[in-house]
């Protein structure tokens, strides 16, 4: 079989593609586009964790010192919070931080799976 360049190229182009294993496409889709949504989002998990921690802390306070210690602790926290939040400078910084976070989310958008390092046109490793 002596092929010239055109014949060889035609023969190469005419080769059928390999048949992928059964179920490959389904498993790709299940790990990407049709991946089941998690039961809780990150924010929900964080909120649940915080609530759990507060509940635990309250239980510990009640067990250790009864209602008095619990009420005293809450009053102390309330005092600190009211002092901090009545400070105009603190409020200004909080507002600036919130506005910056909001502004950044407008530009970056929501990325459900994060960002991987691959870029179009990256060079091979060898």
């Amino acid at each position, binding site marked *: *079989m*002596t092929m010239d360049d055109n014949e060889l190229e035609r*023969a190469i182009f005419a080769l059928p593609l*390999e048949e*992928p294993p059964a179920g490959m496409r389904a498993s*790709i889709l299940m790990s*990407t586009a049709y991946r089941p949504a998690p039961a809780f989002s990150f924010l929900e998990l964080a909120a649940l964790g915080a609530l759990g921690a507060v509940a635990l802390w309250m239980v510990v306070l009640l067990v250790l010192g009864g209602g008095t210690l619990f009420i005293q602790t809450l009053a102390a926290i309330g005092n600190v919070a009211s002092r901090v939040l009545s400070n105009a400078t603190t409020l200004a910084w909080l507002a600036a931080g919130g506005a910056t976070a909001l502004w950044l989310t407008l530009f970056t958008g929501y990325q459900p799976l994060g960002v991987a390092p*691959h870029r179009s046109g990256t060079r091979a490793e060898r």
Partner: protein
Amino acid sequence: MPALLAEAPRLLVRPGPDDGELVALTLRGNPDAFATLVERYDRAVYHLAYRTLRDVEEARDATQEAFFKAFRSLRTFKPGAKFSTWIFAIAYHACCDRLNRRKHYTGEQLPERADAGPGPEQQVIELDRAARLRCAIDALPEKYRTVITLFHLQGRQYDEIATVLGLPMGTVKTHLFRAKEQLRRLLGEMEVTET
């Protein structure tokens, strides 16, 4: 050569929305758009992985890994770039990682065949022309095999092949020239063996 261009691989012309639109739709939260991209390219990506790794399971894993990474980093896909080139590059990197791991663990450059059956040249005798060509491609050194496989998938788009492999275009052309030379020689030898 219009006749040859007409025979260029099936990846070049696609019905429906183009790949860039599908990427944009996926980023806007439409999962069906990414499913269409998977449907378009999974077979070609698997073909590249299988031809590079020559192992069904590893090729399947590399293909899945490539699409998973592509999905995760879809935001980094440059508008105007070719999705096929991008996904092939990711798949090729995944294959290289696997080949490097193999080399690390086995100290061998090329993958072992699971069976100790006859080599590609021996198998070729009773096969038709396409099967013979496939065996001849299998018998090529890995760098030539990959270039020929990408040539099969992307046609004469040397710049795209160079992007996927991360090689200069001149090197790609040289590899392709030598790969074709070796293919012709192998096919000639097979012909002689057959007669």
